[in-house]
């Protein structure tokens, strides 16, 4: 079965990719399968300078999910370009670089540098990281700021921009419409929901940052709902994510309105999951009566 998808000009051989931050820069997972299997590769957030992230513990388990507060640790955009991207040189799947920052200028700086790199095929604008004090999520909760940042970055690059939305908002459709109007080429959703756990022994938050982002199957119904809401209001391609752990979940997300699907937390439970999902997808589509991805699109569950 032909699994190709076209995200507003970005062509993928199949709709499956790892979610940013859950796959590093690809190297570690290449010991489990050939990265050419992937529809795309979304790499970890890049900031203007190297960041060391939050103190540990940075992760905690929850029922059907996990909290994380890595705090955007990364070697900085130049470090990524020099040390991490060369490894992906031989891979023919598109690379989507996740862009983060504290100020709009930092986003623009990162986007400009990545614009010069052939190995980067698209940018994902992370306006939704709940784990850093400044930047990140505040751009993602106010439609005006989200739109302004989107058009600023859009001016700084020729590559397609997917804006990654935060689910920690009253009205996600409003943000999606704002970034569509500001020139986004697509939408990624959802980032993590802000959560917290308290260690009963120490009486302190388990995550040293106090709060962390909740991800995993626990949040899938929220992701499905939000993707469907945005699908009903916006025409941009959507990279859907949030709790996907099986080919059935992928189909559910496609029916909700996603055009491609990213897998995050499930990579930790099973490092082979992306490949397994890609292998199973044709069978799963057929099981539910679909002969192609296009037929799934035509069955989308719209209002």
């Amino acid at each position, binding site marked *: 079965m032909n699994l190709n998808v076209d995200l507003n000009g970005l062509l993928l051989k199949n709709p499956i990719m790892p979610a940013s931050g859950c796959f590093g820069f690809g190297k570690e*997972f290449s010991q489990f399968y050939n990265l050419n299997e992937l529809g795309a590769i979304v790499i970890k957030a890049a900031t203007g300078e190297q960041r060391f992230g939050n103190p540990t513990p940075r992760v905690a388990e929850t029922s059907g999910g996990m909290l994380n507060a890595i705090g955007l*640790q990364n070697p900085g955009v130049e470090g990524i370009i020099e040390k991490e991207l060369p490894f992906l040189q031989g891979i023919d799947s598109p690379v989507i670089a996740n862009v983060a920052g504290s100020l709009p200028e930092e986003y623009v700086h990162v986007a400009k540098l990545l614009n010069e790199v052939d190995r980067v095929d698209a940018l994902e604008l992370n306006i939704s990281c709940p784990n850093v004090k400044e930047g990140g999520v505040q751009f993602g909760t106010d439609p005006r700021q989200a739109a302004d940042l989107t058009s600023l970055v859009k001016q700084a690059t020729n590559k397609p921009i997917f804006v990654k939305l935060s689910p920690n908002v009253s009205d996600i459709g409003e943000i999606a419409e704002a970034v569509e109007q500001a020139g986004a080429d697509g939408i990624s959703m959802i980032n993590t929901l802000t959560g917290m756990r308290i260690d009963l022994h120490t009486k302190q938050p388990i995550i040293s940052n106090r709060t962390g982002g909740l991800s*995993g199957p626990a949040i899938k119904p929220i992701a499905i709902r939000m993707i469907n809401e945005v699908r009903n209001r916006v025409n941009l391609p959507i990279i859907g994510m949030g709790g996907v752990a099986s080919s059935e979940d992928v189909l559910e997300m496609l029916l909700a309105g996603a055009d491609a699907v990213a897998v995050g937390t499930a990579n930790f439970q099973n490092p082979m999951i992306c490949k397994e999902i890609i292998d199973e997808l044709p069978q799963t589509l057929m099981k539910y009566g679909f002969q192609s991805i296009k037929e799934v699109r035509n069955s989308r569950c719209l209002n």
Partner: protein
Amino acid sequence: MISDLRVMSNDEIAFNTYEMKLYGPAVAQYTMPGQFLHLRIGEGYEHMLRRPISIADVDLIRNVVTIVYKQLGEGTAWLRSRKPEDLINVLGPQGNGFNVNQYSQEHLIVIGGGVGVPPLYYLTKQLAKNNKVTAILGFQDQSSVFYEEAFSKFSEVYIATNDGSYGEKGFVTDILESQQLTNHPYYACGPTPMLKAIQNKLDGVSGYLSFEERMGCGIGACFACVCESTNQQGYVKICQDGPVLKAREVIL
């Protein structure tokens, strides 16, 4: 490497402490002491994070690996409820283990605390081939002590318990002192406060420490398990660069 290993046995060997034996062809790769196995917990999606447990011993002829774990939370409770013939999905061996070839004809010290003791057993067996080994093992109290006899086959063994109910009363560092063992290369694994105390006491002596940190991926991709380091990039990942690191490589 990911593989399903079959449970052979799962027995309580000390208070709340269990020894599990698992077998499968993948065990042939488990040659380096200090590495860990990243164990999938439960079925379905309730437990999205694997649990890191050290390799305690390996029988390379029968392809049997031994792990020893303390039941603390839900993950180790699930391990405890496994029965012979059940399968456990294992990612591993992960991380950087103990270098056993660095020394020969030396007097080496292995220092373990609580569930830091298990990886030192596989290490001691290997070190003892070419060296004299002294093992200093610390436990909470008498009921928590395990593997004393096993270690004694390959090494001299001292036991410390916090409350003095068995062995010497006090900490492993007290034994280092009382037995005048503060000048030998060492290998230590245990809770962070113990590692700190050892680093202080044995400052200047060459040693290896095995660290614990909460993990996400366990393979170096998620940056959950990062520790500040004196190395050039300023940090190490415990799951990939560790768990075993040179004593002065990590800032505790």
